[in-house]
């Protein structure tokens, strides 16, 4: 039974890693990766000498930190809420609706947002005008609305799907504990605080540790599509940069080096966080 699993990992995860060699090689169209000449750490040096590198790292860290840390409680809260719904029919409908955005591509989501937030003609601006306000704010273009739009759309799209794992963890909690709590006169809040949350803590920690691996990947498609002249300074992240220089300028080696750096930093963070979590709470991925 393990063979397909191993084969899939080897084919889709390990073999492509061979391409990481390009981070140290000058890519030639007519040569294989091994045949291409070595350039050492030239691309890494080039990246850190680039005037944009610090902005790129800063933007990436801000956005991914928001998604990781601020975004973490939302699916947990939703899972807790779903858990409290007693009507099975309503629960199923509510869950399905919350999962739907996960299946929509960012192109559609941002397209909808552009329409809704458009100056003058967008739904929000028309509502503002209806109530006598100034309905010509270009929300998508204003830098000071960027984080709200980015974070709001991220939560909207991911909250339902991400809540599944917590809901599954909640379903696995021994019901006797709730009954005992009820006998002891515990309120709903006390049940959640003293039983549900401690019981799903290992799941929360594992999800968090694994998420740390992508701390330098803030989400290419969403941010690429959200980029506007007014927010450009905040949107440019390592993922968009890798695509720009790697694909659009054909600098494969350089783009690989930047991508590799993202992966290595993510790996280090996962290892460190895993050790820390094991020491502090006894829960860890391995």
């Amino acid at each position: 039974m393990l063979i397909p699993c191993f084969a899939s990992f080897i084919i889709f995860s390990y073999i492509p890693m061979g391409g990481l060699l390009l981070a140290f090689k000058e890519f030639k169209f007519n040569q294989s990766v091994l045949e291409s000449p070595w350039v050492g750490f030239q691309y890494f040096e080039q990246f850190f000498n680039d005037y944009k590198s610090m902005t790129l790292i800063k933007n990436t860290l801000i956005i991914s930190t928001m998604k990781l840390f601020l975004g973490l409680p939302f699916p947990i809260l939703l899972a807790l809420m779903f858990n409290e719904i007693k009507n099975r029919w309503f629960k199923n409908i509510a869950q399905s609706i919350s999962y739907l955005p996960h299946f929509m591509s960012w192109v559609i989501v941002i397209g909808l947002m552009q329409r809704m937030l458009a100056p003058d003609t967008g739904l929000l601006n028309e509502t503002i005008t209806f109530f006598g306000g100034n309905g010509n704010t270009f929300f998508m273009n204003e830098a000071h609305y960027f984080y709200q739009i980015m974070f709001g759309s991220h939560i909207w799209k991911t909250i339902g799907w991400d809540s599944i794992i917590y809901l599954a963890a909640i379903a696995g909690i021994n019901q006797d504990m709730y009954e005992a709590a009820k006998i002891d006169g515990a309120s709903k809040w006390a049940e959640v605080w003293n039983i549900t949350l401690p019981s799903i803590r290992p799941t929360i920690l594992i999800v968090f540790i694994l998420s740390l691996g992508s701390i330098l990947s803030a989400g290419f498609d969403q941010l690429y599509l959200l980029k506007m002249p007014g927010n450009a300074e905040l949107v440019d992240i390592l993922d968009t940069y890798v695509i720009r220089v790697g694909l659009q300028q054909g600098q494969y080696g350089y783009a690989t080096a930047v991508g590799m750096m993202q992966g290595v930093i993510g790996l280090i963070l996962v290892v460190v966080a895993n050790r820390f979590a094991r020491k502090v709470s006894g829960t860890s991925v391995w």
Partner: protein
Amino acid sequence: MLKNTKLLKMLAVPLIASLVMTGCAPKEKNSENTKQETIKDTAGKPATWIADRKIKGLIFMDADDITEEMNPEVLKQIKDKTGIDFEFNLMPAANSLDGLIAGLASGDLPDFIAFYLNHSGRKEMPIVLKAAREGMFTDLTPFIKDTKIFSKYLQDGYLPLDTKNGVMFRPEFNGAAYFMHMNVSREPGYMTRKTLGGPFIRKDIADALNVDPRTITTSEQMYELAKKIKADNFKDNNGKDISVIGPRYWGGTEVKALYSDLAINVNHTFGRDKEGKIVHESQTDYPLKRVEYVQKLLKEKLMNPEFYTMDENRATEGILNGSFAIVADMHNYLDFNKDMHYLPIGPLNEGDKPFRMGLDFKSSGGAWAIPSTTKKPEDIVKFADFLASREGKLLWQYGIEGRDYTLDAKGNPIVNKEVSEMKDKDPKAAKALGFAGVGNSWGEILGNTDVDRIDDFGEAEYGSAAQSQVDEGPLKIAEYWGWDEKRKNAEISDTYSPMAFFGEFSKENELKAALDNYNESIIRAYYAKSLDEAKKILGEASKQLHAAGLEDYLALLEKKDADPNTKVNL
């Protein structure tokens, strides 16, 4: 849980194996697609016969420009005339350049590839040049000699300078040519259509305000006109308020034609200053003037706030609904405006000079290349030569004789009435007939060069011999704009794009990145909250250009422009 050492071993084994597998795998030397059948006896075959084989191409262009679906009857005609089973695919990609780069990196290319390349400064050039230098393509020169049409490329004075020295016969290749540049006109200054572009205004609004749009020649006059439009509260087709100045027909982006007197050059960012020195726009006061102007338009709500960002669908929809009094950029051949309900404005002055039509010595654009893995590459050159011949062009531009057209006494095609009607009533069905006249442009890839429609077919526009009213609307707009007069006074130049020399510049990547950043920064500056913030944005972009060696590149441009063989378009 596995112990750490065991886990590491388990991870390491497949990783090492994958490195070995990926790294050691040599690039494919032979493409499956290059299989060809044995050439049989050509006796009894037409003079256009090439070989009984398949030719497959991969096209790195947008689906809007090239039609992938071919008509079976047209394919049969190709087979009967040349023996070739022709097939091509469009590379699916977010944009054509991404597709080209990914396609070349894959190393698995069919018999030929085609890509955009309107001049040697275009973004595709460094990519295909790298591929050529690394032996990815076949030298076409030996095969060109034996062709009817492409052999003209070897004649002195036939090719424009950039096509000759920048794209095809680059000095570094010592006579070898790895790309076939296309769309070269037969005669200098030849123009197929009386095309004009730039800002247009809704005719009813111009009439209501009693304004002749042709008298608007400066951005200040445009501003005054915009204010008048705003004051009169015009409505669109749905009775809603209009935006005074809307984006391009094809979506929001920078449109210098709207304020061309505030730009050093409408087409790029290089030019000569008052002292005659080559400068980049960032070294002049044009950008700041433009920023002030655009900020004024935005602040006074004379310009749609999404002018630079609106997607194509919404922009086009807005224009069709009459939601913009002034459209920043469109052209006179757009179908929706055949009734002239939008009139061209100006044209506006360019920099500090009055407008003068500029024409290239010869047109050029698009290119194809043959991968070095292709067997018998001469067949592909011969096939392209057939498509570029009058007989080939007749096939891919007019379709099949009898079915789609008849020949008049002079041998020129007269388009069948049914086809013309179908084109008007059901363009999709007409396109399925499979030739350029009805919007199916497969033949342009390999065959559109040595262009002279009047000489070849006796008409400037498909179908105009049969139906003179076919381009009546566009021609009326051209007449209104004074196209013929402007053409008479046009400046014809044979020059290189200022971006054509990046390949010779040591800081190529840094400068390209800094120029891209500058273009982005200008638009950011338009949307800045104040002029001071805009100045800061532009200052940073200029600093970046300076750090990327802009001054050295300008010195290179001065050197190039001083050489009559490498004059620069400034």
